């Protein structure tokens, strides 16, 4: 477990070298198909991420927040969810929205600048990504309170980062979740950085330890180990469904890329750190494991490679041809009901733009 940087408390089922290990409290047994599915999802998410990064460089996207290195934490936790559970992601959880079934172009639309959302949250039971750090933790709790009021067996997962744990909202989410015993899982991806700040600027203790003081369990898991993340999240979701309340999961992982495409991490972190984490790559370790076990072979991997290419092409072509919304779209859906000012301003813009057409200027 030493190679994970996790500390003794961290749950691991697959070492960085791809060896399957057992844990006294957390077991998982997956079919070969399920295991291949995890590898496939992580691989495709990584490809999507790379493609989006490239598209941003080409000026096709305004920004991209890469999830490189965090695929296991995201794909593993999302795979633990039932279809009727609800995810509350941040801007970085592409692996979560992918597993929830959000179409890749819908995931990119916000970064393309054609919408502030991108998909129908209720269809995929995946909320739009929240940018204001910490806000969504409370949404997840409120949603879970609703589940409870419904007497349903669903659960909610609120995602956030290590930096977010400093925010009032996240701590209030802990308070509310505990007091109402809400069926919610807090999935904190500790990717070691909040832009330029190491986790040590947000906390003096391992983050998972924060939970006990609020009255619910906290668990640290190797966030680069998809099996462990899935096992631990399943366990936490089962607790939620059983009426045992919230759990905080600290998925110990690493942000391999810059914070976003606007960021320059060479200003604040050392290349050697990145190198150490490259040795703990979440995808490679699963590939090695599955290859060793004979669960994947070259033809599967080639097929996956092919599928990645296809996804890349689809994303490239799709983003490039994504139409800009009409100017009037900014007035749509601001209110559900009639609003005279909105209508008047919409007319104002229409008339103003029409005046150019008449003059043949635009």
């Amino acid at each position, binding site marked *: 477990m030493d190679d994970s940087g996790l500390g003794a408390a961290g749950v691991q089922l697959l070492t960085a070298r791809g060896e399957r290990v057992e844990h006294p409290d957390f077991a998982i047994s997956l079919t070969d198909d399920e295991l291949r599915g995890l590898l496939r999802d992580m691989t495709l998410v990584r490809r999507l991420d790379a493609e989006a990064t490239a598209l941003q460089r080409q000026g096709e996207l305004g920004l991209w927040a890469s999830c490189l290195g965090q695929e296991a934490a995201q794909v593993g936790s999302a795979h633990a969810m039932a279809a009727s559970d609800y995810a509350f992601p941040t801007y970085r959880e592409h692996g979560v929205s992918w597993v929830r079934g959000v179409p890749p172009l819908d995931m990119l639309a916000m970064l393309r600048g054609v919408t502030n959302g991108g998909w129908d949250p209720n269809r995929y039971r995946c909320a739009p990504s929240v940018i204001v750090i910490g806000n969504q933790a409370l*949404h997840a709790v409120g*949603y879970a309170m*609703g589940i409870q009021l419904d007497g349903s067996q669903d659960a909610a997962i609120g995602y956030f980062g290590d930096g977010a744990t400093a925010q009032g909202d996240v701590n*209030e989410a802990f308070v509310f979740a505990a007091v109402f015993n809400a069926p919610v899982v807090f999935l904190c991806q500790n990717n070691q950085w909040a832009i330029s700040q190491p986790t040590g600027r947000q906390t003096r203790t391992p983050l998972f330890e924060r939970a006990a003081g609020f009255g619910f369990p906290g668990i640290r898991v190797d966030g680069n180990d998809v099996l462990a993340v899935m096992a631990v999240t399943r366990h936490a979701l089962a607790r939620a469904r059983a009426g045992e309340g919230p759990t905080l999961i600290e998925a110990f992982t690493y942000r391999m890329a810059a914070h976003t495409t606007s960021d320059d991490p060479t200003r604040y972190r050392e290349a050697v750190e990145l190198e150490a984490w490259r040795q703990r790559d979440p995808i490679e370790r699963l590939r090695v494991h599955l290859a060793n076990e004979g669960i994947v072979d070259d033809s599967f991997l080639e097929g996956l490679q092919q599928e990645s290419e296809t996804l890349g092409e689809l994303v490239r072509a799709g983003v490039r041809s994504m139409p800009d919304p009409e100017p009037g779209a900014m007035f749509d859906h601001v209110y559900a009901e009639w609003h005279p000012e909105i209508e008047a301003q919409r007319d104002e813009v229409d008339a103003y733009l029409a005046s150019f057409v008449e003059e043949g200027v635009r």
Partner: protein
Amino acid sequence: MAGIDGHEPVTMTMAQALNHGLRRALERDAKTVLFGEDIGRLGGVFRVTDGLQKDFGEHRVIDAPLAESGIVGAAVGLAMRGYRPVLEMQFDGFVYPAFDQIVSQVAKLRRRTEGAISLPITIRIPYGGGIGAVEHHSESPEAYFAHTPGLRVLTPSDPQAAFDTIQQAIASDDPVIYLEPKRRYWDKGSVDASADPLDPAMAPYPWRARTLRVGSDVTIVCYGPMVRTCLEAARASGEVSIEVIDLQSLSPVDYDAIVASVERTARLVVVHEASRNAGLGAEIATRISERCFTMLEAPVTRVTGYDVPYPPNRLEEFFLPDLDRVLDGVDRVMSY
């Protein structure tokens, strides 16, 4: 409180009218839940939710931990799950911890999801001064919310309006900041509960202003706690004939009603308790100056609180517009 469900109008306070309105909303829709600090056994510090937890249960009238951002943030999640949360902020000065959730999430989530998610959240806030309270208990934050696209802002001025508009606010699929003029909580008025305030015929009602007094020389636009003051001023004014318009809806504002009045009076005074600078009065003055430019006999005059923190209560009578200050404003537009 017999008769509230019958056809006889009943006299009650605004706090009681709100209580009845909330009760109706709870009866109407099982997804309506009340959430706030001390709203259960205590019935809220103003007793507006008195008895509701007892009658509807702890899962319909939910006491919250002491955290306003938590209350509003959790309400967003409840709304996403299909609930219709009605929140109580204990006082005006305690809504600010929730400002981020209100501005960044409540106001924007519907637009963000292109209509896929509605947030039928009502945020009740007892607001305004005049009750001799300590600091943070007399704020008038309406301009902050009116300046925030995606929100609606309502304020009732009498028990009947409170009974009707609280139900309309809750039934609205838009988020509504519902400002309750706390010093009018104990004012009594007749409430006729026989008409259904959700009747489509009444539906646009809460976004419409009400002309409460007809006059020919000056129009006064006011809302919430200042309505009674302005009506008293209008009655006290000997020579000048004053028309009084109660906005009810502070965002959007029913400008057609104001314009129609100013077309007759050619003079406008806007009255509010909130500080003057960048307050709602400025917006109203600007809009009417635009639409009635050639008609106005005098600049639109504002009678408002001053641009200082709400003063300690021994000074509040000097901060708050009262009958004399309203009439002074009327004098100014008449003698311009």
